[in-house]
């Protein structure tokens, strides 16, 4: 006991992946080719070795990558079950994502001037917005996709991280910036300009995340209650204006309050999602035995409902618990970090994961109005997977003690 407990989760993960992949391979036996099989085994081995490797090279947190490995394993088998094409793509995205994780981990660890690049983050964010408006394609009501050379991605996924770094470099250097009396208002203006642009793209979920991250960090680091009051009143005003002016916002609220009159069109998604969860009951119907294809976007926004249907509400609760643990570890990393910049980044990223999971799971189970978002690490989607791993790599980097010579202790 004690000495060996550290090995248990990684073995359980290994077992889970082997069992679930073999089940899926049996299910997809007819159109299974050697490449899929090899990639699947490759992923299992990669996850196993990157967890052990991380233990050796990183003195920081050893839980977040494990937790995330479990999350994407659950997501992967669900996606594979829904469509083997998407499953293969997701496998590749996961391989890329793990690479991005290590890359961003080493970058965060070895570069020291992250807090001095506030203008770069600002420029990146506005640049990505401009790109979205120029090259963007309207997909499912939102112009938030651009495709370059056949690869389409959602720029807002990267903008989220740019926002966190922007706010972190501002609050880290707040003494310098607060010489300008209006600096806090300027920052608020910038954040609201992002939110406004997202509103114009009709990407309500991401707008909500931006607002959440900003409010959270402002609550912790900004002194002066009047800014917080201004922020909250602006949000309230913007929300009500959005409700009055835009039909798509109104529909979200109406179908949230009572989706049943609109069951054939506007409320279709949410009612199907509820049916699926009810159908699954505690242990689910079993993989391959339910009808997740009845839910629109069952592999993406509504993956939580698909998981609940086929793997049971218990697995659904398990997914929520994994997110709770991830966010808990994120805050723990922030508490243990001495360097203020990395502390703010860690809080921002944990907030981002937590909020995103809450908004989309809450939407799928009709706790809050539905807004289209991906469930980090679980939903299908290249940009979502890659940017989530990017953020996780940053969190991993922030979990290590950054000791600088003569750094003043705060």
């Amino acid at each position, binding site marked *: 006991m004690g000495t060996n407990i550290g090995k248990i*989760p990684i073995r359980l993960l290994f077992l889970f992946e082997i069992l679930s992949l073999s089940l899926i391979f049996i299910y997809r036996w007819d159109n299974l080719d050697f490449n899929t099989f090899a990639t699947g085994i490759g992923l299992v081995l990669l996850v196993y070795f990157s967890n052990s490797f991380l233990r050796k090279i990183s003195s920081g947190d050893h839980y977040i990558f494990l937790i995330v490995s479990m999350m994407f394993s659950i997501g992967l088998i669900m996606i594979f079950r829904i469509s083997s094409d998407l499953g293969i793509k997701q496998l590749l995205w996961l391989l890329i994502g793990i690479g991005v994780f290590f890359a961003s981990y080493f970058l965060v660890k070895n570069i020291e001037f992250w807090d001095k690049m506030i203008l770069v983050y600002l420029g990146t964010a506005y640049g990505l917005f401009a790109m979205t408006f120029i090259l963007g394609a309207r997909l499912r009501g939102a112009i938030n996709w651009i495709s370059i050379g056949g690869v389409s991605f959602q720029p807002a996924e990267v903008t989220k991280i740019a926002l966190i770094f922007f706010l972190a470099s501002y609050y880290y250097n707040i003494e310098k910036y607060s010489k300008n009396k209006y600096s806090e208002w300027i920052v608020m203006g910038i954040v609201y300009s992002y939110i406004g642009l997202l509103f114009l793209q009709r990407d309500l979920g991401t707008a909500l995340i931006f607002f959440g991250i900003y409010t959270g960090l402002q609550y912790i680091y900004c002194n002066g209650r009047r800014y917080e009051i201004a922020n909250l009143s602006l949000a309230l005003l913007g929300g009500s204006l959005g409700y009055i002016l835009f039909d798509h916002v109104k529909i979200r609220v109406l179908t949230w309050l009572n989706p049943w009159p609109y069951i054939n069109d506007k409320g279709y998604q949410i009612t199907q999602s509820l049916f699926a969860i009810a159908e699954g009951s505690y*242990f689910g119907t079993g993989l391959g*035995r339910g009808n997740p294809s009845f839910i629109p976007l069952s592999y993406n926004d509504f993956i939580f409902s698909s998981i609940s249907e086929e793997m049971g509400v218990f697995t659904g609760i398990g997914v929520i618990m994994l997110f709770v643990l991830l966010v808990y570890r994120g805050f723990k990393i922030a508490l243990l970090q001495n360097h203020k910049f990395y502390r703010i980044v860690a809080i921002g990223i944990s907030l981002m994961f937590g909020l995103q999971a809450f908004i989309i799971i809450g939407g799928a189970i009709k706790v809050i109005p539905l807004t289209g978002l991906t469930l980090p690490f679980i939903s299908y989607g290249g940009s979502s997977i890659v940017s989530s791993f990017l953020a996780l790599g940053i969190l991993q980097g922030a979990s290590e003690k950054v*000791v600088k010579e*003569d750094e003043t*202790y705060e």
Partner: protein
Amino acid sequence: MFDILSVIFKYVFVIIIYVFIFTIIRMIYLDIKTIKTISGDLKAYLKVLNPLDTIPYKMEDTYVIEDNLTIGRGSDNLVVIRDPYVSKHHLKILLDEGNYFIEDLKSSNGTILNNSKLEDVSILKSGDIIKVGDIDLMFIHKG
């Protein structure tokens, strides 16, 4: 065939996921516990008595004494005190036949042991307070 497998596996999956979560929580819990009870397992250590947030440089809460230990301003010491009034190699604690001894390494501003200036090599008792610069360290030795 597949249906039977699928039904069996759904229970297996739920069990694996919950055991996984439980183990992680247990590991996190054990980690927290080891930080809190660290003093229970150690034989000899130095505890910094100043509240850490009042020290303008980085210090740990406790320092474990294995056999020998030096305190000073230089980075090669085990206990680094970045105070200009502390010499590069300020003092030394050494273990000899089960007893710990303290020796000042001819530091410019000296070391205070229990309110009196340390002149010669002295034996350390548990509970002794060593003052180096502005930092008060308590020596604790069990057994």
